[in-house]
């Protein structure tokens, strides 16, 4: 369980807080979608959840972030990475750049943790198989499609053993086939009991993978609830959130004077 207790965060030199009094809970095995307009604070929230802000990027934080009830503030980064992982939008910059095979790339994170070699090998094998990319093991990560690279990056996070995974727009740079690879991966993670917080502008993906939705605006949570219902809320469009295609279709039908129920 990942808990935010009235967290307020200000970037170094930021005039107003990027995150303002946010309380949030990510339950065991839960997939939560996080949406909001540009600059609403989604990425900042991800960095805070993973401990990178303020630890690495600076800034000031008040409130507490707990993992399974334990305050993360005193934990050094390399301990934290084994409990909560963060993935970013760009598959390329997430690769270490020093490995010649996917297998070594996935091993990079856990190898940094200095565990015995046997454990390292079994972690890598497990991470590759939970994302169903064993067949990529011997390939050069630089020569994969963006979607495949993103899976490799996520496998590299999984291999460090976290139960909580934060993904900041994991499909932003992917084409539809890459996007569906990542969507499948998120579903697999959830089915194996990981807790996932996923930021996406592609609300179709959120509608598919997330049960619960959190909506940010100006650094605060303005709506929260069941994803299926919230995504149909007309107010989301005013907050700069794209509606899922099913919702848009239904609205267009209604606007055209047709009855979606009768058509179905």
């Amino acid at each position: 369980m990942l808990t935010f207790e009235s967290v307020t965060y200000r970037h170094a030199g930021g005039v107003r807080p990027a995150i303002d009094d946010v309380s949030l809970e990510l339950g065991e095995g839960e997939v939560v979608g996080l949406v909001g307009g540009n600059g609403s604070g989604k990425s900042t929230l991800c960095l805070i959840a993973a401990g990178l802000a303020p630890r690495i990027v600076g800034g000031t934080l008040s409130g507490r972030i707990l993992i399974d009830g334990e305050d993360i503030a005193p934990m050094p980064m390399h301990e934290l990475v084994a409990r909560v992982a963060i993935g970013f939008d760009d598959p390329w910059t997430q690769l270490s750049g020093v490995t010649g095979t996917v297998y070594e790339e996935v091993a990079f994170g856990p190898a940094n943790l200095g565990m015995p070699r046997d454990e390292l090998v079994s972690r890598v094998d497990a991470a590759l198989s939970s994302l169903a990319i064993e067949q990529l093991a011997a390939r050069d990560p630089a020569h994969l499609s963006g979607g495949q690279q993103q899976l490799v990056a996520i496998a590299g996070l999984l291999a460090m053993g976290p139960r909580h995974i934060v993904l900041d727009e994991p499909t932003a740079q992917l084409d539809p086939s890459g996007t569906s690879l990542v969507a499948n991966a998120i579903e697999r993670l959830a089915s194996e009991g990981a807790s996932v917080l996923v930021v996406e502008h592609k609300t179709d993906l959120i509608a598919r993978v997330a049960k619960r939705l959190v909506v940010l605006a100006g650094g605060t949570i303005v709506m929260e609830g069941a994803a299926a219902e919230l995504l149909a809320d007309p107010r989301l469009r005013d907050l700069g959130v794209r509606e899922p295609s099913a919702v848009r279709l239904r609205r267009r039908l209604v606007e055209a004077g047709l009855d979606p129920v009768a058509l179905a």
Partner: protein
Amino acid sequence: MVGPLALAGLVVLLPAAVARVVRKLLRATLLLTLPVATSVLVINVLFFPGGRDVLFQAGPVTATREGLGLAIEVLLRLLVISGAISLFYLTTSAAELTTDLERRGVSPRLAFVANASVQSVPAMLERAAAIIEAQRARGLDTEGGPLARARGIVPIVGPVILGAIGEVEQRTLALEARGFSRPGPRTLLWHPADRPIERAARWLIVAALVALLAARALGWHPA
């Protein structure tokens, strides 16, 4: 001349033949030495002080046999040095080298930096190729005369360099998220093979070096 020739054969060409890289080695070595070699040749042949045996004369300069002899000697040495360096690059993988250095106690950070800088070159080249394609699609001229090509480089270098700098921040975060800043040793996934013959070769090299230095110190000067 015997010294450099013997070295060229024993230390450069023989191992290159074993590693089947003779052709590549010759090409790399020639390319590496060509600029220096040209000037060595010109200066020594034409301006060797005290050269007596005149080969030919052209206006104010005189080519001498002594000058040519010295030039060849220096050239051979140059070729041996750059041949040895080329051999190293052609037969050693960056990943194996850094893994082995790490195993021998070099800091993981240093090994990472060394490895990343070597491996980033092909990545940069690929990126440049992609950008060239993109710029060409937008009508940029990257072919033609030298001046046209030089002008064409500007819109390519910009994105490559800026792209690389912009990536640094994201890469830092991604590395941190993978425990990179943890102090202490890393788990090594594999050890580069170190066959007995390789180990023997390394000791042989050290022994040969010591022997040569000793011979020199004792006044041995091969012709």
